[in-house]
């Protein structure tokens, strides 16, 4: 009996010692995270124009990039060139848009993002050379051909934010 209790006791002690030494490990991996800071809204300054310009009743979309590895990613932001959904349109729509840096978390290392950007068509590319957060603001306008009024209905369009490993 004594031998049995001794063995049981030793087993419990061993188990306790093991439980106290459970290691906790973790790893942090580099990444790029894109979040929507402000969804955009088109204003209607006249019957044939939709624009995100604040003066015309619109809201400019703002997208945020968080990067935890320097010199690993570039950001490409493309303003809409077509509607995702719309009523049937008989005229050609002319699209315009632009993107700029509106805020950065590290002005010392990210201050040159705006001056170093590359624009091709309605796409703007930034080299994300530093870690931290960057907020990009876009503007978008759609003008219906021949100054004809947009038909009544729901119009949706998308800004595409791309974060690509270099």
């Amino acid at each position, binding site marked *: 009996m004594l031998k049995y209790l001794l063995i049981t006791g030793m087993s419990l002690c061993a188990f306790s010692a093991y439980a106290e030494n459970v290691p906790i490990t973790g790893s942090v991996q580099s990444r790029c*995270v894109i979040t*929507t800071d402000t*969804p955009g809204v*088109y204003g209607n300054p006249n019957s044939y124009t939709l624009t995100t310009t604040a003066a015309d009743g619109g809201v400019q979309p703002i997208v945020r990039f968080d990067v935890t590895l320097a010199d690993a990613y570039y950001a490409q932001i493309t303003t809409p060139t077509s509607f995702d959904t719309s009523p049937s349109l008989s005229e050609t729509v002319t699209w315009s848009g632009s993107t700029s840096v509106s805020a950065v978390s590290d002005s010392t290392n990210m201050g040159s993002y705006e001056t170093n950007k590359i624009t091709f068509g309605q796409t703007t590319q930034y080299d994300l050379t530093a870690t931290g957060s960057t907020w990009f603001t876009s503007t978008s306008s759609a003008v219906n051909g021949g100054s004809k009024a947009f038909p009544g209905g729901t119009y949706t369009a*998308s800004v595409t*934010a791309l974060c690509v490993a270099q």
Partner: protein
Amino acid sequence: MVPTYPVLEQSYQDGLLVTTLELFNKRKDVEYYEIAVFDNEFKPIPFVSSYSLFKLEYLGRVKFDVYIRAKDKDRAVYVCSRSKIRDQDKTLTSITSMICSKFKRE
């Protein structure tokens, strides 16, 4: 999506390479993400995964394997996740996000 530079390794099946990725949803306005594999000109390359469209709650994460043919190894450059917004959730301007990892070359 992590890792930033995934490595393609031999899978259990001859002629197929595999890599493991993890997807993380930091967008409250998005529940679905689609994955795809591209070449250096963003032309699609055939791949197989458990799902090509993942439903992911806000702050949720999922691990998944991506298989490509060994003969596509040199063409495959990017593996990307793209946010998908349901029609009824679309606002006047929504934001489509796409994050691309680049396959590590030996």
